[in-house]
């Protein structure tokens, strides 16, 4: 981390006599620190209560921003197409990501393969706002995830349960999303993972410290993080939902179960009327517990994306089992 410790320089000013300090590239002028843990988690905090939309080009990014997306995820193929086309899914072309960054004013996220240090460094060098170390792409390393504290850009990672969430946070993820099963338009795995994560948190809340050490062993999670979660009853970083959300009701369901924001991948641009669906998704997240409003929000919306029954998928086509 670019922690540029203490120092006793002064900057800024009180009473209208500005002290001009040059903005230094590495961000230190005595008390100023860039890329701190708080500024990374802080961006995740700002994204709460919103919808993050997958987009594959500038046109889609504009539609997403116009509809009220809180951020966009720039990628070459949405998960539904990755699933259909097969092959190795990699980081997207930086040119496409850059065009989107230059067009919209909301944060732009992009995906790197699990453990792919150089893809992540390229995205960091471009200045994307968040990197998703994502199971939707083909993993580059089956043993090690990225050491995410080392980067200036915050990371989001997927999880299926509490242990996986805490391992990723231990590595430096500033935001957790439950994985769901991307590109299926089927919310069942998103629900399973959110319930597993939050159920895991509820379970450890009643444990004493001796039990928590054994629980940390069972969860294969850092003991300090297990202690912290047991004490606070929540993850130390925001907790979003992803993977299979196709309708406004799905988005509201994930918020009801405890998600703080919803990622929608294939669900918007694989549907009949993307602009309208995108807008309704945003409304549904804001008013997730107002059922009268959800009636209006859900009505007359046309065709959602075609869904897949996950039980019909062969084991080797599941994305959520990538990563550990």
């Amino acid at each position, binding site marked *: 981390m670019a922690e540029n410790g203490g120092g006793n320089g*002064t*900057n*800024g*000013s*009180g*009473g*209208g006599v*500005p*002290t*001009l*300090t040059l*903005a230094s590239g590495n*961000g230190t*002028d005595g*008390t*100023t*620190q*860039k*890329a*701190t843990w*708080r*500024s*990374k988690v*802080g*961006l995740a*905090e*700002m*994204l*709460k*209560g*919103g919808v993050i939309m997958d987009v594959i080009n500038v046109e889609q990014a*504009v539609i997403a*921003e*116009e509809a*009220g*997306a*809180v*951020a966009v995820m720039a990628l070459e193929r949405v998960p539904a197409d990755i699933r259909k086309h097969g092959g190795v899914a990699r980081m997207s072309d930086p040119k496409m990501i850059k065009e989107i*960054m230059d*067009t*919209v*004013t*909301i*944060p732009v996220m992009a995906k790197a393969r699990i453990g792919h240090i150089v893809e992540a460094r390229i995205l*960091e060098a471009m*200045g994307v*706002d*968040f990197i998703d170390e994502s199971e939707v792409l083909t993993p580059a390393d089956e043993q090690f995830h990225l050491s995410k504290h080392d980067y*200036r*850009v*915050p990371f989001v990672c997927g999880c299926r349960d509490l242990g996986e969430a805490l391992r990723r946070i231990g590595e430096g993820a500033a935001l957790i999303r439950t994985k769901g099963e991307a590109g299926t338009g089927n919310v069942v795995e998103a629900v399973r993972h959110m319930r597993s994560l939050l159920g895991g948190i509820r379970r450890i809340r009643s444990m004493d410290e001796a039990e928590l050490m054994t629980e940390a062993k069972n969860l294969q999670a850092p003991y300090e993080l297990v202690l912290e979660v047991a004490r606070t009853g929540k993850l130390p970083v925001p907790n979003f939902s992803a993977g299979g959300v196709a309708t406004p009701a799905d988005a509201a369901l994930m918020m009801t179960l405890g998600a*703080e924001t919803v990622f929608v991948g294939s669900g918007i641009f694989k549907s009949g009327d993307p602009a309208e669906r995108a807008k309704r998704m*945003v*409304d549904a*997240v*804001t*008013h997730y517990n*107002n059922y009268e409003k959800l009636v209006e929000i859900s009505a007359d919306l046309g065709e959602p994306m075609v869904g897949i029954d996950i039980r019909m998928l062969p084991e080797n086509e599941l994305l959520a089992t990538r990563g550990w």
Partner: protein
Amino acid sequence: METLSKKPRVGILALQGDYESHRKAVEAAGGDPVFIKTPEAIEGIDALILPGGESTVIGKLMIRYGMDMAISAAAAGGMPIYGTCAGMILLAKRIESGAMRGGQPTLGLMDIAVARNAFGRQVDSFETEIETLLEAAEGDGVITVRGVFIRAPYITEAGPEVRVLAHYQGKIVLAQQGNLLASAFHPELTGDLRVHRYFLKSIPH
């Protein structure tokens, strides 16, 4: 039922953003926080916070749900309103740079112009010590707060009615105009309650 302690009811606009962090800060600072998602809900509150988040999203939703009129009416009636980051952009009369293409709505309540994402993208987000005149209204002390700036805006122009309370690198990052308070940074992320306390003190009993 009569209650003995009369805590001010502080509405927090909860359409999108870090409203939960503001809820905690308001509670810790001695207010009674309540999330606001509809225009009607504004009736029952003594003050309002416009949180951090994405100003494009909050601005659109405010208009989509008819809350811009309700908030403007409340402001005209003297209700104290505090905007952080995105909330500061929403209070501004004008967005000088960084607005989304095609423009984006603001409430236009405060006589300030702002530049959006003016300190840069996320890789340029930072924390720093900010010297403020928060206490100067009563005493003469300068108090220093920890400022967390996230893809932050700053104020490029302030009208004669606006009192500048803090600068950073020559840019205005904290300002007040009558019942309206705006900061480019996020006190709600630091556990330092002084800005919230200052705001709560401005609520008429």
